[in-house]
């Protein structure tokens, strides 16, 4: 027990720092390599993985390692953007539902149920298509479909907080609704919110990849993992396994990393486990 006590917090912090550094490195590397990822060279097409091309090359002679990095980087950036938008929407709507009275609550809860009732991937496809696909379509699609679950959590939390003694006291002292929400509720909500935000990433990234894979997302000249995977389908029957395997594995790895990041962040932030 004692040893764990000592290490849990420290090791979590170390893990968090390492994971963040890794993801940041991938993101930055991807941005720098964006041009290299699109560079075609028809003198080196369809090469199997080797020391020179770690992940092999595709039918246009593009380096799959560089493409994978650029793809993951793009995924992470889209993930950050969409998760941030989603979380902001969730925060505003969740708080509003809880604070603005029963009528607003009914409307917002109805919206939450509505959006949650439609399969995510379908909704993402529809919104993306309506927004003209491409980067804008994917960001709109993913961010407009991922807020409800977090909004529901926040709404529940705020409802509970509303009757907490210190909030009631603040209200009695004449602090405005907005003031209580901002000064007394938000700090309390923050851990929940941050965890929810981080846990949105894996979904956002996977849905971005899926919708692109299905052809409703990013355009095929962009180095997105979804594009890489859907292209590779064509070449599987001729035995070019490396086109799908490495990008697929690394996509999973990034998603798992984000999921772990969320879990560990919760350990740190949640008062119940923060001092274990």
């Amino acid at each position, binding site marked *: 027990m004692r040893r764990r006590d000592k290490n849990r917090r420290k090791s979590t912090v170390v893990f968090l720092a390492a994971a963040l550094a890794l993801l940041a490195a991938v993101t930055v590397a991807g941005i720098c390599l964006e041009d290299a990822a699109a560079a*075609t060279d028809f003198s080196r097409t369809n090469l199997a993985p080797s020391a020179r091309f770690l992940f092999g090359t595709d039918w246009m002679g593009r380096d799959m390692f560089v493409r994978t990095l650029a793809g993951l980087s793009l995924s992470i950036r889209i993930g950050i953007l969409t998760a941030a938008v989603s979380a902001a929407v969730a925060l505003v709507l969740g708080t509003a539902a809880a604070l603005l009275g029963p009528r607003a609550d009914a409307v917002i809860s109805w919206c939450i149920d509505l959006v949650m009732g439609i399969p995510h991937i379908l909704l993402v496809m529809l919104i993306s298509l309506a927004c003209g696909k491409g980067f804008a379509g994917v960001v709109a699609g993913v961010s407009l479909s991922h807020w409800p679950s977090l909004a529901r959590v926040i709404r529940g939390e705020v409802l509970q907080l509303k009757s907490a003694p210190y909030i009631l006291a603040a209200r009695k002292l004449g602090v405005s609704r907005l003031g209580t929400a901002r000064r007394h509720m938000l700090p309390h909500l923050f851990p929940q919110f941050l965890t929810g935000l981080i846990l949105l990433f894996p979904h956002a990234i*996977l849905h971005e990849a899926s919708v692109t*894979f299905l052809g409703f997302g990013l355009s*095929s000249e962009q180095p997105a993992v979804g594009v890489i995977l859907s292209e590779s*389908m064509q070449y*599987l*029957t*001729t*035995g070019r*396994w490396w086109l799908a395997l490495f990008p697929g594995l690394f996509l999973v790895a990034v998603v798992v990393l984000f999921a772990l990041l969320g879990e560990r962040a919760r350990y740190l932030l949640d008062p119940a486990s923060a001092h274990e």
Partner: protein
Amino acid sequence: MRRRGPAAALALLLAASLAGGCAGTKAGEGQAAGRDGRSVVIAMGPTSEPEAGFDPAYGWGAGEHVHEPLIQSTLTVTNADLTIGYDLAMDCAVSEDGLTWTVKIRDDAVFTDGEPLTASDVAFTYNTVKAESSVNDFTMLDHAEAADDVTVLFHMTRPFSVWPYTMAVTGILPEHAYDSATYGSDPIGSGRYMLKQWDRGQQVILEANPDYYGETPEMEQVTILFMEEDAAFLAVQAGEVDVAYTSAVYSDQEIRGYSLAAYESVDNRGFNLPAVKASADGEGRKVGNDLTADVRVRRAINTGVDRQEMIDHVLNGYGSPAYSVCDGLPWYSGASEVPYDPQEAARLLDEAGWTIGGDGVREKDGQKAQLTLLYATGDSVRQALAADFAEQMGELGIACQLEGVGWDTAYDRAQSDPLLWGWGSHTPMELYNLYHTIDGNTVDGREQARYSPYANETVDSYMDQALVSSDLEASYELWQKAQWDGTTGVTQEGDIPWVWLVNVDHLYWVRDGLQVAQQKIHPHGHGWSLVNNVDQWSWTQASEP
């Protein structure tokens, strides 16, 4: 939260990738098909399946991808050299003013329900397709009428000398048994084959017509399976089909018992080069491109692109350089051919004022020479062609960016940016569609061609003359002059508003022992053209098990 969907898809994908790695190219042992020597099984792409069925009024044979309708007879046919021959027709003549076509038809053709095919069926067919067809232009036809049982008169709204090419793809419907709601799935015709079975999304089985008036088909049964390219490849490996379409991606594979057949095509790929300066049209669309508006730049692009390199790189050698939209057809002008000459290209660009800047990109008045190349998203061959083209243009000092677009926006975008198109059809009308100006399609008060802004009165007038010509064979020369008449045209020395890159060979896996009859130059569309003459295919004795 919801993780199942995408995760499952991903898992599947990974599993598939591993399985794919192990599936080597093993020989197809099965000899299921072709056993009796009179039948053949062919795999085509899913897009080859006619959505509206086998009704000529809804695109069968005469749609975007032209081919012989097989189930129905046509008045004329295209010969191997793409001149006009006769099927039902015995004689075909046009009046001096070009406004009346008189076609005599044979009297021994019979529909598969036993009724004889008469001139009134022909007239009914043409009046029906004119009224119904949404995929074909029949505005040049006013109406058709039957003068007697074997004579049809076509009254035209305007002279249209290439009318026999339209007649070659329009299948004749039975007037007594035509219901537009059911005909597509239950067609009655007088052609070489009858539709025996159609399982939507899967297969079509055609059976030889015993009462056919021409030579009895060699192949009694033709089964066509619709499958994706990778599935077709696996079907060949398993020996389940006799013929399967494939592409350059698979062309380096070897399958025992099969060989790869490459058929020449005019299935070309080329970029349009907007020939006017950038502005906006009446509807606010962007039209024109400041870089390609200069004819010297367009000429530089045309002569500065190494077509053979493109064929070797992208098509694995299975293609031929394209210099026009109609290479090798009777109306093709040899003047279209242009040598690969990068020095000349550089000289032209210098002359046009585009000089090499510090970063290797040409500049003029502070403007960079930049192009956005559009291609149909999801088409890997077009994407690779566009990428190779971009690479080659980069060497000339024109910086290119690729962008995948859907067909919903591609037509509008192509008004201002080069788009990689695929054309190639068995009629000279294609020249008209690409290069002739369209009434009302104006930019800055000048009428322009439909797909890419371009206008040349001389070119227009040759094509107009060709259409009013009363002698089809003689009109080929006018079509050729429209391309290049010695002083102007659409070739390198002329305006070159489109740069043609390659003709994509149509590739098929063919089981050893199957004799595929000689193919006409295939038009655009990797599908039914192959089976135009399936009735003449045969199995050699050697392949019989």
